[in-house]
């Protein structure tokens, strides 16, 4: 019977091997697949190409993979909060490809929607356009940007069911539903896992057809990069 539930992160990532291309959901440290990242660190899978909006901070998120030199190439839109990242980049140990955030998101969607490429105006006239096809529609210039090819997508959702249906919470949604559609294999970790039939079918953000494996994550730290508060 249809049951995509696996025991834990170790089982979920068991067939990810050195040199794999991974998509990792999240924006900053918000909505990142903490359990899977830790499992990737533990298993010491190397030479990874990681597609993720950001690269974590030094001691959390993708930063944990960077610390152990597991990342060969980082594809991201902003990598600002990570000193080790900067060191590896400047020393040439790691490659980085910077992509406008909307282009990154839309290229993920294109993959999940079976569209080989999209046109976006972002980056026209900039370094990003170098070597890319430019095409004018209705008097405005657009770049042709291609869908991604990713072995695995690893996402974090709030709730999920045994069929792989996912619901995200607040801004932790970000890239997660887009990447969930874009992996050859999609792994979802969730805070709450319920049997199929318990989620409202109108309120599912990622239909289970896109998800291959799901497990209930543990010990979420959910670190906050910038706590800003209103004083009473």
């Amino acid at each position, binding site marked *: 019977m249809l049951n995509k539930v696996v025991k834990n992160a170790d089982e979920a990532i068991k067939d990810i091997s050195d040199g794999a291309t991974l998509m990792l959901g999240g*924006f*900053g*440290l*918000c*909505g990142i697949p903490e359990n899977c990242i830790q499992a990737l660190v533990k298993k010491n899978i190397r030479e990874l190409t990681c597609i993720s*909006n950001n690269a974590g901070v030094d001691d959390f998120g993708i930063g944990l993979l960077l610390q152990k030199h597991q990342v060969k190439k980082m594809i*991201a*839109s*902003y*990598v*600002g909060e990570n000193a080790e990242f*900067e060191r590896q*980049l*400047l020393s040439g140990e790691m490659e980085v490809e*910077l992509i*406008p*955030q*909307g*282009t*990154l*998101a*839309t290229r*993920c*969607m294109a993959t999940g929607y079976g569209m080989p490429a999209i046109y*976006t*105006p*972002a*980056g*026209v*006239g*900039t*370094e*990003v356009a170098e070597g890319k096809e430019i095409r004018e529609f209705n008097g405005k210039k657009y770049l042709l940007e291609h869908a991604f090819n990713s072995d695995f997508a690893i996402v974090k959702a*709030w709730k999920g069911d045994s069929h792989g249906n996912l619901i*995200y*919470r*607040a*801004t*932790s*949604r*970000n*890239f*997660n*539903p*887009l990447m969930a559609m874009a992996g050859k294999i999609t792994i979802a970790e969730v805070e709450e896992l319920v049997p199929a039939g318990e989620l409202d079918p109108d309120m599912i*953000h990622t239909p289970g057809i896109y998800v291959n494996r799901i497990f209930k994550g543990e010990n979420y730290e*959910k*670190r*906050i*990069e*910038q*706590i*800003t*508060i*209103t004083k*009473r």
Partner: protein
Amino acid sequence: MLDKFGIAKRIAKELKDGYYVNLGIGIPTLVANYMPPGIEVILQSENGLLGIGPFPFEENVDADLINAGKQTVTTTKGSSFFDSAMSFGMIRSGRVDLTVLGAMEVADNGDIANWKIPGKMVKGMGGEMDLVASAKNIIVAMQHVNKAGESKLLSKCTLPITGLGCVKKVVTELGVFDIKPEGFVCIEYAPGVSLDYIKEKTQGRLVIAPDVKEMVV
């Protein structure tokens, strides 16, 4: 001359009732603090939120609820969450009425440079290139000169470009400048600032509007 709060206050006057607005990091974020009374403006955060509210009280901090600057926020009534593709979809299709950004340089043809300084660590463009390529109304909030005292209002950007011909207005500590075919058109000068001083500090083509007036903040 204005401080950064003055710049934010002046930009806030551009807000109209019912506007959807994207405020960048830095001075632009401050604009939210000076909303004109009696109007309702919805703030968009490109990580996937319409309806950004004030920072939370300490006990309401929520790791799942942040703005594009990764700061904890709250939501206003009528807010909605969505994924990043839809977020940039609404930006690209021109649904955001006003976008306020910081910049390192603006050229008198509306080009903007704000993502990269050669020789320094490149952190990335985030959503800036998407915003400047698509937003229909972009106001830049920035200092008129850089730390070396050089004008940031140029005839041509010297730093790597973020977007071409997209900036509509620049508000600095010295004044308000519309970008028109003839260049930077100074429509307001800050209290205590002379037009001659503005001319001295502006490297790009500068035109003083016939009806130029002192800014009221």
